[in-house]
């Protein structure tokens, strides 16, 4: 039995970092923790680095990146850092001075190379390193709470022992992300101190947050491992949204309890022995100080806000009909992990088969529950890509080639580059490309995709290679062919999958912008796991259903009505239940 999360009873340190997958409740938990301490008379600074942060809604106050004192919570100051904005400013500071002095094509090349995940990470880390090492703030506040922690990759980047001293200052050949850091060399001491403070168990507590579901728990275990490796060992785990309502009230709630129990019994080894706490599922949106105060204390039955009407939606079957009629050959379900991409890719595949098409379905889902479908259907080929293996193989290939010409010292920087998020995407993308390439006779359904940045990177490199007379280490042919194909809206359909909640919707929106930049057309959105479409008398779930409607309508507007809304499914996904999605 998990203990209730009561911050005041725990030995939380001065710096508290909340980390976890999007949509698990990082922001509300961080807020509730901050308010709890502030109410006890502690001076608290709360800092959000989440671009999708809804801290402004939560506190019903306009925030800035300097710090705003919250009315009604005298001891609490809140600060909202937007890493996307920070990255944009960083990019501008690099590129801006050269506008007009270098041709447009050169500026564009620079901008694109600074639009990647690395830049966002660096800009974000840069900002909060500042807050983590600032002596003035340290003296002023009892607790400094961060919503969103640095990733393992960022930390490793900044920890590279020799990077600053020899590599960056002496060699012009900076490794990717480190190369970008060269401009920030004056901050190297700050970074070092930030990493030291994070790893100091007397100073910092790292809080991993997950929902009682497979995918967020898996993500938490990965983060836990990465951070432990870097010396950040003072970790605790919070499971947010434990359903404690009366399971006897309806079938739905019974199934919800069963699902959650299974997830908790199968909690990954890595985080199994961490001190773990729970926060029960609440039936209200955590907005407003009163509800933040309640969040760690009690339920507050039925939100009294007005019921919003859903503007409209399509059924999955209508989308499948459209894909079939338009004769689409390459289908992607894109979105963040945990939104149900795999299940939907499989449902769409089955729907197309029912209409007489031959389908090749491929996935990177580590759970790979698609295996269940293989035997059951004709005209379906299923393959799966193990992302870890793809990356491992890619790394080996690269290092093998590099060893032929490079010294051991140079190799260590390449090894570091190979841990970057870009590399992982590209490794997986290469495998995807070869699958799509081999499947001219079938419809190919792919359940994950590279980001717009990666696509632009591929494009830039392809163009670049054409200019180089003697090509070495050429782009794989399959990748070359895939790019034009993805941009061809006649042939390819990219479907964005999300959940009816704040963070997943914001994240999906950013994904769409990335794709647009890469010249890839999107049209349909799927909003998965809606409680609005299930029959339940359970008051908690009814309230959840009410709360999600504004997000459904927002997607309706974004997608200009091309929205499929799917119910929360009580069954486990198997070959038998899958067709339910498109019935």
């Amino acid at each position: 039995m998990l203990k209730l999360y009561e911050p005041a009873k725990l030995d939380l340190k001065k710096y508290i970092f909340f980390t976890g997958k999007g949509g698990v409740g990082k922001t509300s938990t961080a807020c509730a923790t901050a308010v709890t301490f502030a109410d006890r008379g502690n001076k608290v600074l709360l800092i959000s680095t989440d671009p999708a942060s809804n801290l402004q809604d939560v506190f019903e106050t306009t925030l800035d990146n300097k710090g705003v004192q919250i009315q009604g919570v005298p001891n609490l100051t809140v600060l909202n850092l937007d890493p996307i904005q920070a990255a944009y400013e960083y990019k501008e500071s690099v590129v801006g001075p050269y506008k007009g002095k270098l041709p447009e094509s050169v500026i564009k090349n620079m901008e694109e190379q600074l639009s990647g995940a690395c830049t966002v990470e660096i800009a974000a880390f840069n900002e909060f390193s500042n807050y983590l090492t600032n002596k003035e703030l340290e003296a002023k506040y009892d607790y400094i709470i961060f919503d969103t922690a640095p990733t393992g990759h960022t930390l490793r980047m900044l920890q590279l022992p020799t990077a600053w001293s020899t590599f960056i200052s002496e060699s012009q050949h900076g490794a990717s992300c480190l190369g970008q850091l060269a401009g920030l060399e004056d901050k190297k001491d700050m970074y070092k101190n930030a990493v030291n403070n994070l790893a100091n168990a007397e100073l910092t507590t790292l809080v991993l947050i997950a929902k009682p579901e497979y995918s967020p728990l898996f993500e938490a275990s990965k983060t836990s491992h990465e951070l432990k490796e870097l010396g950040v060992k003072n970790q605790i785990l919070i499971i947010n949204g434990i359903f404690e309502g009366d399971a006897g009230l309806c079938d739905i709630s019974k199934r919800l309890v069963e699902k959650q129990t299974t997830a908790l019994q199968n909690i990954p080894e890595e985080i199994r022995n961490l001190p773990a706490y729970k926060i029960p599922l609440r039936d209200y949106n955590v907005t407003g100080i009163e509800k933040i105060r309640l969040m760690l204390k009690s339920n507050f039955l039925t939100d009294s806000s007005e019921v919003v009407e859903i503007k409209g939606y399509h059924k999955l079957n209508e989308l499948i009909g459209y894909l079939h009629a338009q004769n689409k050959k390459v289908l992607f379900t894109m979105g963040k992990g945990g939104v149900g991409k795999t299940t939907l890719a499989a449902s769409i595949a089955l729907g197309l088969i029912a209409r007489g098409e031959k389908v090749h379905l491929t996935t990177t889902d580590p759970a790979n529950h698609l295996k269940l479908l293989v035997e059951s259907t004709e005209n379906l080929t299923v393959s799966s890509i193990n992302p870890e293996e793809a990356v491992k193989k890619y790394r080996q290939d690269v290092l093998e080639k590099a060893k032929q010409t490079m010294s051991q010292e140079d190799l260590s920087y390449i090894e570091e580059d190979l841990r970057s998020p870009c590399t992982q995407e590209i490794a997986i993308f290469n495998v995807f490309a070869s699958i799509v390439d081999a499947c001219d006779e079938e419809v190919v359904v792919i359940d994950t995709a590279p980001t717009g940045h990666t696509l632009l990177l591929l494009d830039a490199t392809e163009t670049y290679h054409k200019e180089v007379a003697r090509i070495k280490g050429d782009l794989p042919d399959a990748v070359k062919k895939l790019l034009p194909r993805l941009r061809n809206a006649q042939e390819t359909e990219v479907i964005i999958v999300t959940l009816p909640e704040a963070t997943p919707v914001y994240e999906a929106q950013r994904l769409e912008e990335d794709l647009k930049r890469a010249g890839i057309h999107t049209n349909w959105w799927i909003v998965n796991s809606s409680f609005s479409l299930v029959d339940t008398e359970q008051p908690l779930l009814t309230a959840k259903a009410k709360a999600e409607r504004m997000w459904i309508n927002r997607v309706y507007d974004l997608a200009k009505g091309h929205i499929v809304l799917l119910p929360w499914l009580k069954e486990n996904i198997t070959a038998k239940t899958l067709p339910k999605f498109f019935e």
Partner: protein
Amino acid sequence: MKKIEIFEVALCCSTGVCGPSVNEDLLRITAAVNKINASGGNAICYNLNSNPDVYVKNVIVNELLMKDGETVLPITLLDGIVVKTKAYPSNNELADWSGIALSTDASSNDCGCNSACCGDSESGCC
């Protein structure tokens, strides 16, 4: 000692490994430049992203860029004079210019497609 300067495009990473494929040219150049410098020579690579300043301040490079755009990169200068554009110098060229022995371009007829012909007639390997 002659000075070799190579002006590269802006790449996500100059080793090229987080790009879609390993650009062996980038690896080769990294190794060659290190070797030249370690042997008392003078060679330097500029990445547009980390050193945009030099692309503006160097009049020759800037004029070439203004005229032809980024496709003119990489540009190699030898003591300030353009010796190569649109491609990296070979090891043979670098050795000639620097007077420092480098591994020769044994594979100068190899288009990089392992064993088979890649069908790219321009690369001159088939």
